[in-house]
């Protein structure tokens, strides 16, 4: 900055070399250290959380955890088998609702009418919905399903989870369909394919890994949600299948609500159960997430 013509006569060329004790350099390395340690601090919570969940969760974990009903206070053994079945059932209901409609809507957004006003509006709504607090999805399902059916149910829980899954599936599916090369689609159209044929033969097969990634992420998110299930599926101490019947219209246990209910307990054995449940839930979700990421990585190649 100070290289005005006047200084040209006696210009100190040394000043052009890097000098680590200059205030500019010092400030630079100070910032390196400060921001580096902050970034490092950001990693600590995850390590601590995973460590605690694995350490405390594995203590009470046994085979009976997976196949037995929740124990009473002070009772030996017991498990959360019904909660795992409940979570899987409700996430499946949600996926049945959200996956087909999400993918078909994404086909509209990416292929049938990408520049239409409707598509713009759908994208905006989907983005806003993806930021919807999960408890409001629960309030919505409570008003739509619980109040109408007059009972807490697995179905209501599924609807609440579907509301949360839909925007994730929709937005990621649109993204991956847009990545399909235009020339593939143009070639198909040039051969006289109808839109439906292009979608079935070209668009969906090519975009499939990306769509699957989105679905896996959405399922992982739904499996861990507690708030929307609190007053839609409630909780139950019994199996979902009773006397050979699938009781979808009755209160249903889920792993997440199990953890919430048991974590506040005054009894040690119930708290230990909650930690074991947390370990299983975290393992389920991380597996889903990692497979989604591996898929995405494969895609990039």
């Amino acid at each position: 900055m100070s290289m005005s013509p006047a200084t040209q006569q006696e210009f100190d060329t040394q000043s052009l070399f890097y000098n680590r004790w200059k205030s500019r350099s010092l400030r630079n390395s100070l910032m390196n250290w400060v921001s580096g340690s902050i970034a490092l601090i950001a990693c600590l919570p995850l390590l601590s959380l995973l460590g605690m969940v694995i350490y405390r969760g594995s203590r009470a974990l046994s085979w009976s955890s997976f196949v037995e009903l929740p124990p009473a206070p002070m009772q030996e053994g017991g498990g959360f088998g019904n909660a795992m079945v409940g979570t899987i059932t409700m996430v499946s209901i949600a996926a049945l609702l959200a996956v087909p409609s999400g993918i078909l809507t994404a086909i509209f957004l990416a292929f049938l009418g990408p520049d239409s006003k409707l598509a713009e509006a759908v994208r905006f709504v989907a983005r806003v919905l993806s930021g919807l607090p999960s408890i409001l999805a629960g309030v919505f399902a409570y008003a739509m399903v619980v109040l109408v059916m007059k009972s807490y149910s697995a179905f209501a829980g599924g609807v609440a989870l579907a509301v949360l899954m839909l925007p994730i599936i929709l937005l990621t599916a649109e993204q991956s369909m847009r990545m399909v090369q235009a020339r593939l689609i143009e070639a198909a159209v040039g051969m006289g394919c109808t839109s439906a044929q292009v979608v079935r033969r070209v668009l969906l097969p090519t975009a499939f890994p990306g769509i699957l990634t989105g679905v896996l992420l959405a399922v992982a998110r739904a499996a861990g949600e507690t708030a929307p299930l609190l007053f839609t599926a409630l909780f139950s101490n019994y199996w979902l299948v009773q006397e050979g019947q699938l009781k979808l219209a009755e209160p249903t246990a889920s792993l997440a609500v199990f953890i919430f209910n048991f974590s506040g307990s005054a009894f040690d054995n119930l708290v230990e159960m909650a930690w074991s449940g947390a370990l299983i839930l975290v393992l389920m979700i991380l597996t889903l997430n990692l497979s989604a990421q591996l898929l995405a990585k494969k895609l990039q190649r």
Partner: protein
Amino acid sequence: MKNTIGTSLKFERTIDSAFRRVCWTLALLTILLGGLIVFEIFYHATPAIKKYGFSFLTSSQWDPANEAYGVLPEIWGTFYSSVLALIVAGLLGVSVAIWLTQNFLPSRVEWFLKTVVELLAAIPSVVYGLWGFYYVIPMLRPFAGWLHEQFSWVPFFSTPFTGPGILPAALVLGIMILPTVASISRDALSAVPSRLKEAAMGLGATRWEVIWKVVLPTASRGIGAALVLGFGRAIGETMALAMLAGNSSRLTLSLLSPSNTLAARLANQFPEAGPSEASALMFAALVLMALSLSANVFGVVINLRARYKLARVGVAR
């Protein structure tokens, strides 16, 4: 022969138009779903809106026995905990985003850091609550007790630490929204064209001079959007707060005091609510929705504008 081709063509066309119609309808239904969510909550809140009106927002009572309801302490608690969480997440998240985008790290370490942040986003809220309750609160206890003893004249530390409260809730909440802030800031930072950075480096600027004077100002809108969206997420976060905030409605500045938020109030009260309380809770849900939707819409709009502006000068990726 000609005839079969004719019929199969007709068949394909019928399928095609049906398929288009189904996709179009589902797209429309997505918008309707958004509208329906707003409508349903509004509809069920109507009795409470008529009965309490604006005073619902300014009253501090929550008394089902006398049917007197107000959510002022919850609104305060929601804002207070979210702002504190945003300070934590903003500091950590933007630093992480800088470290991920400005060539600080070898690509393996970069991948590790990125994965850690992504996994943070994947951990369920209820597990954060469990961890916060059995790990963060006991860890804070001696420190918070010392703060109260030494600085009880400062309003932030004016009450004794009883366990669940604003400080642990805001810390855990900050960690929970860190991934949102970090990933959106990262997108914003990596959208800064490298020729701008190279130009500054060519003039002899140090790395942090480039970051402070070129990269951060260029990405400022995107980072702003990241903060607003993170704030929106913090407002609606439920389970960790229901477990860590203390479920006690107070209007206080003290970080050590128990508190409550709108979402935590819903989670704790809804399962046992009678009809009049349910309507009041729907009103609270409406307030929560208004807060979080406005933060979200605002954030989405800033983010789109930031990209649009970069695209207009022809420098977007």
